[in-house]
């Protein structure tokens, strides 16, 4: 059975809060009560449609966006990182935010080398602009992105003295994976990108630096330029597969099976690498809602921090979120290498887990969190408060020790609800998405 065949809800597997929360968690961040209710009422198809739609942003995001350019202009990288967290916290376009983050990990560029917040800001905007569009356009834009040109030494790539850094990572990490190209392909591809430079933070093609001689990449010869190499690369079967694996790991399961990878790769190829069309198929698929795929991915620090802030409707300061995620091992704009963050189990060791437990305690222990006011907004009575928080954070699927506690103690006042929330988001289950 095709794993991308549409999921059909039935009496046995009804479209409900659990499924809606799962979808929202994967396609964005841990959802708020209001996001869950909206999705349950709208149904699966409509929810996926609105995740992919070009919706209007919240006022808060417009306010934040007015701050970003000046931060970048001042080369305030910490400020820019905080801005990004603020945006993820408040955006209505959670899938767009999630995919921008996904591409930041895919085309992983670090300010440690770029050393220019303006370039990093431009790159985030490029990633966002193409996040849900055509992967081909994304590749073309990234190859011309000044931060990428600095990061992978494009500026040093000159006719007669080719620098292979970008060509190598293009094949190894951005499009194909090891084993799907030769060293000769890299050497020739590097020549095709000669003269793709940047000047004053803009892409600049320098014709005199470009190698106009014949090159041969993947068996095709000609006076190839960078766009030709991108096209030839994307025509390799390994390319659709490479992106399919990454999408499957991000949205379905950390170790996706062969049938699923093949189905996503086919969808990518058939849609001419249309990311939205591919995501739509994934989100509507049987694989997406296969019981075996619920809460099997270990959340990244950003998912953990932003998810708590969104689902518990915290007044979380952006810089605090950015610092917390950094302490947990994910400092945005500074991925560990061009390979990005390894993710999944690599996120957790006894130190980073402890930092999560402490962050969880801080998040719900003070003024940032107002459990009763939040529950009041949804008309949830004190008698149902604790259970509702369990529904919100763990889809009501409490592990036995938490279920016991819910049965045994009333947990109605403010202090008890805070403590209960802390336990919920400190649970091993909550670390999974």
């Amino acid at each position, binding site marked *: 059975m095709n794993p991308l065949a549409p999921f059909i809800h039935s009496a046995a597997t009804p479209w409900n809060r659990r499924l809606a929360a799962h979808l929202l968690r994967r396609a964005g961040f841990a959802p708020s009560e209001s996001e869950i209710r909206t999705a349950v009422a709208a149904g699966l198809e409509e929810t996926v449609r609105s995740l992919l739609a070009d919706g209007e942003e919240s006022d808060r995001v417009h306010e934040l966006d007015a701050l970003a350019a000046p931060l970048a202009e001042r080369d305030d990288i910490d400020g820019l990182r905080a801005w990004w967290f603020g945006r993820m916290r408040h955006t209505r376009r959670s899938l767009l935010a999630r995919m921008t983050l996904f591409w930041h990990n895919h085309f992983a560029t670090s300010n440690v080398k770029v050393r220019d917040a303006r370039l990093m800001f431009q790159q985030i905007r490029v990633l966002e602009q193409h996040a849900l569009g055509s992967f081909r356009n994304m590749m073309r834009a990234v190859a011309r992105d000044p931060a990428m040109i600095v990061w992978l030494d494009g500026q040093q790539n000159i006719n007669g003295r080719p620098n292979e850094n970008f060509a190598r990572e293009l094949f190894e990490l951005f499009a194909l994976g090891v084993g799907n190209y030769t060293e000769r392909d890299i050497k020739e591809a590097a020549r095709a990108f000669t003269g793709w430079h940047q000047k004053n933070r803009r892409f600049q093609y320098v014709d005199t630096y470009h190698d106009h001689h014949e090159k041969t990449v993947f068996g095709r010869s000609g006076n190839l330029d960078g766009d030709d190499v991108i096209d030839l690369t994307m025509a390799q079967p390994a390319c659709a597969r490479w992106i399919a694996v990454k999408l499957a790991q991000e949205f379905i399961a950390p170790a996706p099976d062969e049938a699923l990878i093949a189905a996503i790769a086919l969808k990518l190829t058939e849609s001419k690498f249309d990311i939205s069309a591919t995501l739509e198929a994934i989100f509507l698929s049987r694989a997406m809602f296969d019981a075996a795929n619920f809460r099997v991915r270990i959340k990244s620090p950003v998912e953990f921090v932003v998810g708590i802030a969104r689902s518990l409707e915290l007044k979380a300061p952006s810089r605090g979120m950015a610092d917390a995620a950094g302490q947990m091992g994910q*400092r945005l704009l500074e991925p560990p290498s061009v390979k990005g963050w390894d993710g999944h189990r690599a996120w*957790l060791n006894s130190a980073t887990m402890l*930092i999560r*437990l402490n962050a969880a305690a801080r998040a719900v222990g003070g003024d940032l969190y107002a459990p009763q006011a939040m529950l009041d907004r949804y008309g949830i009575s004190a008698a149902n408060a604790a259970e509702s928080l369990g529904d919100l954070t763990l889809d009501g699927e409490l592990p036995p*020790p938490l279920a016991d506690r819910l049965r045994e103690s009333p947990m109605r006042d403010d202090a008890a609800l805070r403590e209960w929330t802390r336990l919920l988001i400190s*649970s091993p289950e909550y670390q999974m998405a």
Partner: protein
Amino acid sequence: MKTSRRVFLKSSIGGAALLAGGVSVPGFLARTARAATCETGQRILVVVQLTGGNDGLNTVVPFRDDIYARLRPTLRISDAQALRLTDDLGLHPEMRGLKKLFDHGQLSIINNVGYPNPDRSHFRSMDIWHTANLIPEDARDGWLGRVVDSESRETDAPGALHLASAALPLALRTQRQPVPSVESLEAFRLPDGATDLAGLIAAPRPSAADDLLYVQRVAVASCTNARRIESVLRNDRSDSSYPDFGLAGRLRQIAQLIGAEFGARVYYTSLDGFDTHARQALAHGPLLRELSESLAAFQADLAARGVAEQVLTMTFSEFGRRVAENGSQGTDHGAAAPMMVMGAACRAGVIGGPPKLDALVDGDVAHQIDFRSVYATVLDDWLQLKSTAILGKYHERLAICKRA
């Protein structure tokens, strides 16, 4: 009584283990106890980065050298002031603490350390030291990051810890295991009333998949660590023995973590302010005093905790400074400089001898010892790893450590 990991381990061998907080851990998680534990007595490396380019010539002073005296008209340390190490070299007068360690056979000084074609940019030179690669742009990780990633045993403990307010240094950048970077030990304490957390985390789940079990194990290990750190802090009396310096405070916390058997193999912290282009004497003396007294207190504390045999401490800076002082009673970016290695396992002494000030290169001290030789020695002789695997090629080893 301090519950040592060993005692704790023994109790875990039968089906259920007791966490330090008195919580019972079911057998299926008992592997955690083993995994979280580095063997007792594991060797530990502490790195202290001197940020900004420490003036090596006024740290390990060639007090007899006329060229030094002539080129440092206002900044020179005189024969009478220097704390004598050898016939030709002495420590800055503010470094009494380290002088005492030298005399007690616990400090090794490696002089004139650097690399070919020195880069005088703070950033690039620091990157070279951090990656142990003369073309740091080619490196994907730091040399200590490679130490962390080389760990093949399944372990829940972080391989290294960065304790400072700055961002994680490139030296600790890994490709696989994240290295935590915290400003203080507070990050590893659990809030009050969190005692029940470990029990909730550890309780068996009806059908836990592998990944959930992994999270449970790591989470239990982190609670165990927190308890242990809590207990070390509660019983800690080392406060009074440390001077009131920032570096001393950070080293004290590192000693506490080592005492708590936190499990990291590498601890890393830094002292900033060494970029002394103007009126150097006002800044440099106090910095060296902070360094010296903090390190001495740290070494004494390790001894008091009974772990001195386990720990080796190393200092480095991205470069030394120009021999001739500039017109603002400061010094500009230079090249080779001394490194210091401290610990019970050290062979005390000065390796490398006085700098050759009559053979400067571009006005700077030329390196006689490649810094990667120091790294290789620490990797092979101390951490018992294969330096060729971590550094990518063979580097000569130095006689820094006593024979095992």
